[in-house]
């Protein structure tokens, strides 16, 4: 029995450039990369050097805090470049693909053997093959801790927003592996496994899934975000955790257990106002953005975002798609200046408020660019932030607690529920990075707690 949860607060993003609902094969990328920045609070120890030959599944990094947690190469080839940033922070490990894929073998299992695995054996296998990194936990949205037993597991089979690859489409024909993944996930927890699906899901992988509690989620962005779903379905109690995987990650996990090889196949949506060929592409984990955007985006200065336009990471033209991301968003950098901007009625402006004429005429979509739409000021307006917060936080008050460094107050505000959806920052007329301030508070709790 599926129950429905409608998320009331949030925002339907009226941004142009939704991808078409079809999947095509993308050309094989020449490079893929592993980006340690995709894994929150992960302190990497490098295991390879530039020029090393690696197979798909060769460990590239291990955690300094727990050497069992490793991150593996998404492809076979040679380590072309280890890219470091300020203070030698590891940014990217770039693998140049060579010939057919060669895999590290972690032992194939047939379906019944896989289902017969004990929790310990499963955990050990996932850790060894690097598939552990597909499992994340809340609070903190970091890789799960293998020593901990989660209160429940949530499988997020909803698209993050209208620009994301929809699992309802991606999982068609993958029913068997997906169900295996759900059964394996059930081994990880003593509590229930929740399967979050779109309200209008039709794919049998989602509608006929067994052994799980199916939750149909409806509502504006970010109703498709696992953090929001966990908040509404199964918020972790104090000192407890809830683990979660996004649908394609669960599929990769199941395939890994069945075949004993990393499963680098991913479906990624290309969208956004500056993308000219918008659809879903079958490509690889960590693929170079160029392999998708080449010839499919407008010319000129563009911003590429791996993940959602609301909270994804800005990547250069030569960058790579993030580990957990299934969307690539292209938009123009907004450096155009407008004459006497605030005297204009604002027919072509997108605002949640009712301060532009467009608010009353209801244009369906806006080709937004990256312009900040104003300049930085102190907090002035109130009451607008909590109206869009999907997890019932009062973001401006919480941000003040963070600025005061008051951990107790932050926790009372429920800062750990923050889904990092970016909406409070989006609506702020003072152009304050409210969401980033909350993240700073969460980092502080992580460090001190």
């Amino acid at each position, binding site marked *: 029995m599926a129950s429905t949860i409608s998320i009331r607060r949030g925002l339907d993003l009226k941004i142009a450039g939704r991808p078409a609902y079809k999947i095509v094969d993308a050309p094989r990328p020449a490079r893929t990369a592993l980006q340690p920045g995709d894994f929150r609070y992960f302190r990497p120890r490098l295991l390879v050097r530039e020029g090393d030959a690696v197979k798909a599944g060769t460990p590239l990094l291990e955690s300094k805090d727990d050497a069992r947690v490793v991150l593996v190469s998404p492809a076979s080839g040679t380590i072309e470049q280890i890219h470091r940033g300020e203070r030698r922070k590891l940014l990217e490990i770039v693998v140049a693909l060579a010939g057919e894929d060669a895999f590290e073998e972690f032992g194939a299992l047939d379906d019944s053997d896989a289902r017969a695995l004990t929790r310990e054996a499963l955990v050990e296998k996932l850790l060894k093959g690097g598939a552990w990194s597909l499992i994340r936990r809340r609070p903190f949205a970091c890789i799960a801790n293998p020593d901990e037993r989660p209160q429940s597991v949530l499988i997020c089979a909803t698209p993050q927003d209208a620009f994301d690859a929809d699992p309802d489409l991606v999982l068609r024909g993958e029913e068997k592996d997906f169900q295996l993944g759900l059964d394996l996930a059930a081994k990880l927890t003593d509590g229930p496994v929740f399967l979050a699906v779109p309200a209008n899901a039709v794919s049998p992988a989602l509608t006929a899934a067994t052994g799980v509690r199916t939750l149909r989620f409806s509502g504006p962005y970010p109703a498709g975000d696992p953090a929001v779903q966990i908040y509404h379905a199964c918020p972790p109690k104090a000192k407890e955790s809830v683990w979660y995987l996004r649908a394609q990650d669960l599929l990769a996990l199941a395939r890994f257990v069945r075949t004993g090889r990393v499963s680098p196949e991913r479906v990624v949506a290309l969208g956004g106002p500056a993308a000219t060929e918008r659809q879903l592409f079958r490509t690889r984990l960590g693929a170079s953005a160029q392999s998708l955007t080449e010839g499919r985006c407008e010319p000129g200065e563009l911003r590429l975002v791996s993940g959602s336009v609301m909270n994804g990471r800005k990547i250069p033209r030569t960058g790579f798609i993030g580990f957990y991301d299934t969307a690539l968003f292209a938009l123009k950098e907004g450096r155009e200046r407008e004459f006497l901007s605030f005297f204009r009625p604002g027919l072509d402006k997108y605002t949640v408020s009712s301060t532009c004429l467009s608010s009353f005429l209801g244009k369906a979509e806006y080709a937004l660019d*990256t312009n900040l739409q104003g*300049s930085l000021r102190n907090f002035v307006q109130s009451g607008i932030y909590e109206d869009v917060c999907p997890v019932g936080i*009062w973001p401006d008050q919480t941000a003040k607690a963070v600025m005061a460094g008051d951990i107790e107050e932050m926790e009372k505000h429920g800062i750990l529920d923050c889904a990092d959806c970016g909406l409070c920052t989006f609506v702020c007329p003072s152009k304050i990075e409210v969401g980033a301030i909350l993240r700073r508070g969460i980092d502080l709790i992580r460090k001190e707690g």
Partner: protein
Amino acid sequence: MNVNPIKLLEEKLEAARPLFEKGGKFEIFFPLYEAKETFLFSPATVTAAGPHVRDALDMKRLMILVVVAILPTFFAGSYNVGLQALAAQGLPTDPVSCMLKGLMATVPIVIVSYAAGGIWEVLFAVVRRHEINEGFLVTGLLFPLTLPPSIPLWMVALGISFGVVLGKEVFGGTGMNVLNPALTARAFVFFAYPAAISGDKVWTWVNPAKDKLVDGYSGATPLLVAAGSKGPQVVAALTDAGFTMKQAFLGSIPGSIGETSTLACLAGAYILVATGVGSWRIMVSCVAGALGMAVVMNAAAGPESAGIMFLPGVWHLMLGGFMFGTVFMATDPVSAARTKRGKVIYGLLIGALVILIRTVNPAYPEGMMLAILFLNILAPLIDYAVMQGHFAKRKAWRGASNV
């Protein structure tokens, strides 16, 4: 040759930029350059990280909308200043002369307010190296509208200086202030120069020494009349003094420049609420608080009480600065309560306190300014209390919702 003058202006401004940036000749005037430049052209800044797109509303648009909402009271008020002055001298009161006469009184006051306050704004922006805050566009217009038309211009300059410097800038500028800066300015003038801003001689823009006034001219505001009358016949006393409810609603009564026309205030309220810029919660609860308190006071009035104790709540809403304060002052988002429930409590208390001051306190026939300033101080406490409730609710929800 076809040159786009706007493009040319943009290029000229851009060319001048190095002069004002770090190491430039006029480095210390960067805030001034920034203000002028971003006033003319929206900034080219792009987002640094997610969210990569932003809402089109910014502080400039927000503040300009407030200014637009204030304008009806400015024009209605100016008209009334002219009307009162001409009527007091028995001169013809055709609309054009009323408007012209009124603007002759109000425009210099507004200009002095903007100029004197603006100098402080720029000075602080330059010394503190922050940008010039758009909030001053509102403060600089609100303050003069709370003054009587006969106010000496040097007092306007002094008042706004006090409001901007001690009401706002010492706290760190717009967004950091505790009190409403425009009301802080008015409170300064009110307590420093009471003769210029209270009593019955200041509300009409005439010079009693020079101008010949008509017989029976009093100059008292309806609130003064009501406070001065005795017993339950207060409405009759008002009518005798020539004040009808229609006049009070439309604004042809003596009073501070912007406060007289309830209709104009309601027009402003409509703009603020329709655009979402002003809080309807505060406005509605202010009115509710006042009506409630008026009922209490009417019931408590004895036969020997002052007439104002008997004044029906509806009259209170239309007299004095109640509507102007409710719509434009109490709703200042910085000095008001920030939480939703807090706004309701804050509004109710302002409304109730105004009536309490008007009816019980013999020293001040008007209480709006003091009520708002007092609640400005209490607003953080209200928010604190509301937040404790929010925390408790979250905790209870957490405990109940687990599987």
